[in-house]
């Protein structure tokens, strides 16, 4: 009873083909297949230990799959270093906000903004007006203009989350991998984050991992459920929520049933 998703006619932007990852005999991912179309917004949910973070690790090159392949825009990402994958256009936001604590938000963004990232370029070149403008825009988008020169470490949790999202945008990637963007945010902030992510879809492909079901419902997008390292089911929030297997893995089922 696989939920049916309208298969896009265009070729997928990012595709995981039969990916498996083993840590010392424990299979964190098990024959995982997933594909993202250009401009798609996709949510991934799953109980703890379902392999969500490992799944991001595999795409971004941090973990090399034991089996299977990851294909991005027609080329395999296997064996490519993390920073090269990032340069190809895959950006990642971490579970806990990770910004450079000792730099100001502006400088955080200036590091992330798209352009050459070679040491010599950073030393000898400077930001052009377009890049500068982009940084200013992004500061406005995430509402950090007033705090642009503070130490990022002194920002609030929500501000850090947004700063990190802004850094992701500054990279201007094809794919945004967003790991728990609303953890620890207030209701209002959550709402704004949801709106932001929705607005990004279309120009970018966005993949959101989240525990907050209300938030995902708000995103109003296809949902993929991971369980024990493979895709349990895919579909809209409603179909997924009514799927007995999903209920089973989330709520547990008594043995004798």
């Amino acid at each position: 009873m696989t939920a049916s998703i309208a298969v896009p006619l265009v070729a997928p932007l990012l595709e995981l083909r039969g990916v498996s990852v083993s840590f010392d005999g424990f299979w964190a991912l098990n024959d995982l297949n997933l594909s993202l179309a250009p401009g798609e917004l996709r949510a991934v949910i799953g109980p703890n230990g379902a392999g969500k973070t490992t799944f991001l690790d595999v795409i971004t090159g941090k973990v090399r799959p034991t089996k299977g392949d990851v294909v991005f825009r027609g080329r395999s990402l296997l064996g490519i270093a993390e920073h090269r994958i990032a340069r190809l256009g895959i950006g990642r936001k971490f579970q806990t906000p990770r910004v450079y604590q000792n730099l100001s938000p502006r400088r955080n963004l200036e590091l992330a903004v798209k352009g050459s990232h070679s040491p010599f370029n950073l030393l000898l070149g400077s930001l052009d007006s377009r890049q500068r403008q982009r940084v200013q825009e992004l500061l406005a988008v995430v509402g950090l203009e007033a705090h642009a020169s503070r130490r990022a470490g002194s920002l609030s949790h929500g501000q850090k989350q947004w700063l990190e999202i802004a850094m992701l945008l500054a990279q201007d990637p094809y794919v945004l991998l967003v790991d728990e963007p609303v953890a620890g945010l207030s209701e209002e902030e959550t709402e704004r984050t949801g709106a932001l992510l929705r607005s990004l879809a279309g120009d970018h492909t966005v993949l959101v991992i989240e525990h907050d079901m209300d938030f995902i419902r708000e995103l109003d997008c296809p949902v993929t459920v991971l369980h024990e390292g493979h895709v349990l089911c895919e579909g809209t929030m409603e179909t997924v929520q009514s799927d007995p297997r999903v209920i089973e893995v989330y709520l547990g089922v008594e043995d004798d049933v």
Partner: protein
Amino acid sequence: MAKLRTWLPWLLLVAAALILPAILPPFRLNLLGRFLSLGIVALGIDLIWGFTGMLSLGQGIFFALGGYAIGMHLQLLSLAPGELPEFFGLYGVKQLPVFWQPFQSFVFTGLCVWVLPALVAGVLGYLVFRNRIKGVYFSILTQAALLVFFNFFNGQQKLINGTNGLKTDTARIFGELVGSDAMQRNLFWLTVVFVMAAWLLCRWLTRGRFGDALIAIRDDEPRLRFTGYNPTAYKTLVFAIAGAMAGVSGALYTVQSGIVSPQYMAVPFSIEMVIWVAVGGRGTLIGAVLGAVLINYAKSLVSEQLPETWLFIQGGLFLLVVTALPDGLVGWWRQGGPRHIKAMVGWPALAPTYPGLDLDPAAQAERQAFRSDLPPGGAP
């Protein structure tokens, strides 16, 4: 006003460089020159540790390499054609080893002093960073590398005169004895120039986006990697720069000390370098130079008076700086340390946060009562 504040330290420095040679006796001036030259290696350590977060315990390698390069050049310089440095003769070496040949050229040596250490640092760094070895592993590995070099240099009499090292005091530059007072004064000025240049270089490196990238590596390297940066390239580059600075520092130190020996690669010396930076204040640049000069001067003075106590003092300094002054003297100063002390003795007076409440006699009486309720011994 702000202009003056920026320029004042420089004016003071230039003034000091001009006045000190006139008023200090040659020996003290020579000491100051040597310690200033150590400031350059300290600046390099500040760059890699203070900004990039890599604690190298092996800077002595690059320091000594710079020293050996200039040392051999000076040995060769003061020889008649066809002659060999004396020590070769004692170990039965009849011909100048090939790798020493180019050191007859001043230009080559001048390059070698910083290029060679930079290359060694670059290669070593690349191998280590490529494998993402960092933190304490990096520290231990650099220490192991240091020990490899130390033992090797100590054991190779025929090539580099082993434990004895190379002497420079009796060599001549432009007919002037290197060890003479006049030449040492020139070397002092040269050192001042190099320290300033090194400081400017570090400042240039750390002020812009490059410096931000270094700090980003220190604070969150994986994050930077996922932003599309290759930290290995940055770390290798900055480690090589620090190596080059160590080499220049070693060369200046050597000509002012009169000798370069494997002792420069001794394990404790390289750790001491780190503590100069820690005491001065890491991540502050000027603190590194300050720390190098202050601690070495203190060491020199203490060892003249109470040699046995130096280890206690040095050990105590390590503990003190690490536990209580993590940002060093300069950091403490910049964070308003002196103000805190002043505030403790009641100057300026404590401003009431809520005057209406705090100055209310009833509230004060209550506070007084609360205080006397505390158990003897006070603070929990």
